[in-house]
């Protein structure tokens, strides 16, 4: 068993990176996630594992540092919050195009613009639908607890290297800031340079006489070549959709109605479920853990068994589009959201269920 600790979500991300054998972290301060780099700097991971931590001059620089290091096969991570993640989009698109593994943590705050420093889920579209230019996908993980903040870092690195694709952890200001108990996994040693080269023959590590030179790029000026690149990417995303979907269900067996929610909203819905069940409403909870790949089939199948779904999000209605696409038009699906940093209360969610779905 791992070590039990009381930690903030952001601290758990940082500690998990060190324990996962991460080689480098590059970041720029922004609320509500600055604790990630602060924790790393205080922990001196250079002494613990040899991990490099560098405060960059901007998020543009941090994502391009990530791109450079990932292109050499190193295990690297950055974290930021909404405005900083927007600034990274060009680099993220390049990394997706060049098929580079890395973990990018977004501790989402309210937007648009400078918005607010309070928690939000308004970056769902940006994370799941692309964000940057071109047809690409990130693997998107949505932690709902400090424990998952820790575990998703390790899972994120595994998936990033398995598919040579950037992975985003889509968290929010509440999960980043709140303290919970967390069981930390046992440290994994950082890979040696020899192992790295053996495991990542695609990486630019210095050309020996024995092989061709390696080029890391997302450019192919020949349209036929660029189409091949795109087809290869799409085939990879399909494979990810076939193999990597994660979700959790609660009380769905006898349910007539379903809350669909990710991250913090799912935590709130758990409480709303208790309140609604006490009133005799047969309600279940469906929580996607991977937002890409989205659990299309599981939600589709659930849609055949229930009368209605309330999609609860801290945004103006984003994931609801994917829920509707998954289910079709057979049942009533409505959205309930608060935004700008407001967290809905369990009571108002129950009320929304009663007025929008059951009574509506």
């Amino acid at each position: 068993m791992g070590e039990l600790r009381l930690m903030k979500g952001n601290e758990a991300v940082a500690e998990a990176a060190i324990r996962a054998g991460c080689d480098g972290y590059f970041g720029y301060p922004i609320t509500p996630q600055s604790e990630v780099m602060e924790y790393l700097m205080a922990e001196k991971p250079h002494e613990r594992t040899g991990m490099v931590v560098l405060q960059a001059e901007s998020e543009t620089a941090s994502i391009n540092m990530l791109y450079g290091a990932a292109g050499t096969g190193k295990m690297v991570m950055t974290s930021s919050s909404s405005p900083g993640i927007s600034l990274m989009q060009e680099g993220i698109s390049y990394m997706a195009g060049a098929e580079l593994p890395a973990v990018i943590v977004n501790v989402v705050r309210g937007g648009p613009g400078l918005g607010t420093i309070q928690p939000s889920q308004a970056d769902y579209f940006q994370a799941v639908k692309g964000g940057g230019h071109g047809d690409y996908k990130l693997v998107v993980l949505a932690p709902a607890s400090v424990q998952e903040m820790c575990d998703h870092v390790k899972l994120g690195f595994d998936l990033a290297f398995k598919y040579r694709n950037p992975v985003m952890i889509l968290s929010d200001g509440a999960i980043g800031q709140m303290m919970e108990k967390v069981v930390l996994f046992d440290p994994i040693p950082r890979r040696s340079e020899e192992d790295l080269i053996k495991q990542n023959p695609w990486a630019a590590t210095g050309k020996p006489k024995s092989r061709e030179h390696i080029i890391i790029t997302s450019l192919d000026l020949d349209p036929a070549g660029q189409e091949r690149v795109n087809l290869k990417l799409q085939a990879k995303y399909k494979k990810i959709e076939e193999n990597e979907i994660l979700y959790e269900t609660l009380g769905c067996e006898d349910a007539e109605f379903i809350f669909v929610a990710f991250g913090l909203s799912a935590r709130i819905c758990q409480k709303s479920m208790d309140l609604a069940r006490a009133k005799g409403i047969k309600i279940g909870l469906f929580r996607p853990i991977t937002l890409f790949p989205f659990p299309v089939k599981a939600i589709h199948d659930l849609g055949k068994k229930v009368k209605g779904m309330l999609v609860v999000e801290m945004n103006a209605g984003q994931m609801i589009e994917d829920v509707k696409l998954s289910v079709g038009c057979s049942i009533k699906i409505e959205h309930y959201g608060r935004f700008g940093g407001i967290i809905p209360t369990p009571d108002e969610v129950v009320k929304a269920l009663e007025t929008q779905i059951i009574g509506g």
Partner: protein
Amino acid sequence: MEEPFVKTEIRKDENIVYKRTDLLVDRPLSYCPGCGHGVVHRMLMETLEEMDIQDKTIGVSPVGCSVLAYDFMNIDMLGAAHGRAPALATAIKRLWPNKFVFTYQGDGDLAAIGTAETIHACNRGENFTIIFINNGIYGMTGGQMAPTTLPGMRSSTSPYGRDVQTMGHPLKITELIANLPGVYYVTRQAVHTPSHVRKTKKAIRKAFEQQKENKGIAFIEVVSNCNSGWKMTPVQSNKWMEENMFPFYPLGDIKLDGKLIQKSEIAK
């Protein structure tokens, strides 16, 4: 069958006095005939060959005419986003401190869109080499005004000449960088004559030798022509460069062994 122009029987080892280094890939360069980019590529690759560090070198190419440098240089390379090469190089060198790392960047890449990455990598004293090709124009996108375009100089976005009142002054980024404590070696060279080519190659060698000792940034500016963008023949462009670019961007060492050796003239 047509007779080959050069009879193969005279291509014998004992007749060869100069050959392409194996560190340049045997394929046609994408540069316009007369352009300086190819010459700098060759000097760089010859240096790596002479130092026998092909297997220990990781290069970063820019977005600009030299975007495909990775196709021509027979070493492991990464293609950066426009302006971001110093950020890539920073992380690569930090995580592979025993490798030789360099960026190869144009003036738009390094001194406009990538100014922040350039200045901060230099100021942190990262241990890599920057090769900076200053041709006073955006070559790749068709000859638009660059941060380095001279006052009065015509380009497709300054068709009546650069008016410094409305378009700003040319940026002498090299002098600016020389003043940063993290920078160890700064020089400005050219490649339009054999003697200049030799000097540039020496500067490249010096930069890579210093990288071994972790001295900080070595920054080599090469003032070069863009005959296509300047709308001149190669010969005209080299003459124009001598008469107009060199007075504004004087050649020579600017910082040696961490010490400024020439009064820097950031603004005119």
